[in-house]
């Protein structure tokens, strides 16, 4: 077996308690980070759900010929921001109003003439569902001669924008704080493991081990601890998610890629933590 792998694994065998402690510490640090990640993921999901309702409606002047409308629909669909554009005829608008506005059913039934205009309903692609893009598209629609009015609930879209920015800012700041705390805790844990073996490191040096030779098993060990900690953290997060789902509210879990990223982050901190601890230790003695 490769010497580096053997030495790294032996270290687990020789200090099972400390190793388990390191893995547990890493797991819980990443678990806290993971829980926060879950909050962010679900918040994003919720925001995305709200975003999907961002819609621009262009009301058409009465008597617009159907050929003009068909052409306009094609043009609008060709806008880079537009996901779908749907034509709603006057009759359809009335039918929808009858179905949706139950309290006005009688009024609507007794109408002699349909007062509702035909319209084009436009949904934007993800990433364009903010106030700026919505206004741009609305402005462009106003340029069509047969468009009477354009509506998109400006206040609402702007509020959504603010909410999105706030969520991003909180996510970054709090997430970074959690990540830093996790890095510090994991780094300290790994430093303990290195210090515990300082006598061994000194002996290795006496018999002519190069720094690289001494360092490599520690790096591997740190990465393995981080990896295991990450896996346990994902397990804990999943348990928490399952409990929340069952007793509190429907929520989403990490995608496979996000879960892998958390585990990889654990392994990376383990690796870097070991690299700095061993490096500092080797420099000192």
């Amino acid at each position, binding site marked *: 077996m490769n010497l580096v792998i053997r030495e790294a694994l032996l270290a687990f065998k020789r200090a099972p308690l400390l190793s388990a402690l390191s893995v547990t510490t890493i797991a819980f640090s990443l678990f806290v980070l993971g829980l926060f990640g879950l909050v962010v993921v679900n918040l994003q999901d919720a925001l995305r759900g709200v975003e999907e309702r961002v819609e621009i409606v262009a009301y058409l002047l009465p008597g617009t010929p159907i050929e003009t409308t068909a052409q306009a629909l094609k043009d609008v669909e060709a806008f880079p921001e537009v996901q779908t554009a749907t034509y709603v005829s006057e009759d359809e608008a009335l039918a929808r109003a009858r179905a949706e506005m139950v309290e006005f059913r009688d009024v609507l039934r007794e109408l002699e003439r349909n007062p509702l205009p035909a319209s084009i309903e436009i949904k934007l692609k993800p990433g364009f569902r903010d106030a700026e893009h919505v206004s741009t598209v609305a402005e462009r629609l106003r340029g069509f001669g047969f468009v009477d009015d354009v509506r998109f609930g400006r206040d609402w879209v702007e509020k959504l924008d603010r909410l999105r920015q706030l969520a991003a800012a909180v996510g970054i700041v709090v997430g970074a704080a959690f990540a830093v705390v996790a890095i510090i805790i994991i780094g300290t844990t790994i430093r303990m493991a290195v210090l515990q073996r300082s006598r061994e490191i*000194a002996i290795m040096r*006496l018999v002519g081990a190069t720094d690289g030779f001494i360092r490599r098993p520690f790096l591997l060990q740190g990465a393995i601890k981080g990896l295991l900690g990450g896996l346990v953290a994902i397990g804990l997060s999943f348990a928490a998610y399952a409990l929340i789902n069952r007793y509190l509210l429907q929520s989403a879990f990490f995608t496979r890629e996000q879960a892998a990223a958390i585990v990889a982050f654990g392994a990376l901190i383990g690796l870097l933590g070991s690299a700095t601890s061993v490096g500092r230790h080797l420099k000192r003695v």
Partner: protein
Amino acid sequence: MIKFTNVFKAFPKGGLALKDVSFHIAKGEFAFLTGHSGAGKSTVLKLIYADERPTSGDVRVSGHSVNEMRPRDVPLLRRRLGIVFQDFRLLEERTAEENVAFALEVTGARPSTIAARVMRVLTQVGLAAKAQAYPRELSGGEQQRVAIARALVNEPTVLLADEPTGNLDERATRGVFQLLRDINASGTAVVMATHDLDLVRQAPYRVIELQEGALVYDSAVDEPRDQAAAP
């Protein structure tokens, strides 16, 4: 082989650990380094295995200057030296065999050759039967033999021993000392720091004596003297 030329070594907090020390130990020689504790014996050894660097003066080991040695070359120097300490410095969680093998593994020796080489040196120090024992299961003398086997396994040209019998009873001391003499007889230079003057008197070897960091007597240069009068 080992050459000190006007070596001074300052303590980090001031004061001198070594004052103008010069000597030359030839290939295959056996030399005692004597003197009271704190006289500078360990510092001399540390300078040889490049754990310390001289403040001024020149230290050469097999032609390489310790002063100018790059940090990455230090491990290579140590592989050509065998080092033995009073407190043995064995890895507690490894068997005698593993402790010795470890010194070979760090050099990148071919794994297929390691077991045979380890057994050979363990046999040489008389511990072949206890290859599987852990240090805590061995007596002090036996632990020192493991340490000597570890020092020998890379076939060093010089064996450095810092008070190797300091923790041993009289019988173990005699055994370890005889082992060092045998090793020297087979061609390896031995530099042994000790304050055990009985040992020094037993053998006709060179004596280099330090006092408060200064070399006060070197039997290779100075007039022979009545060793009974030596401190």
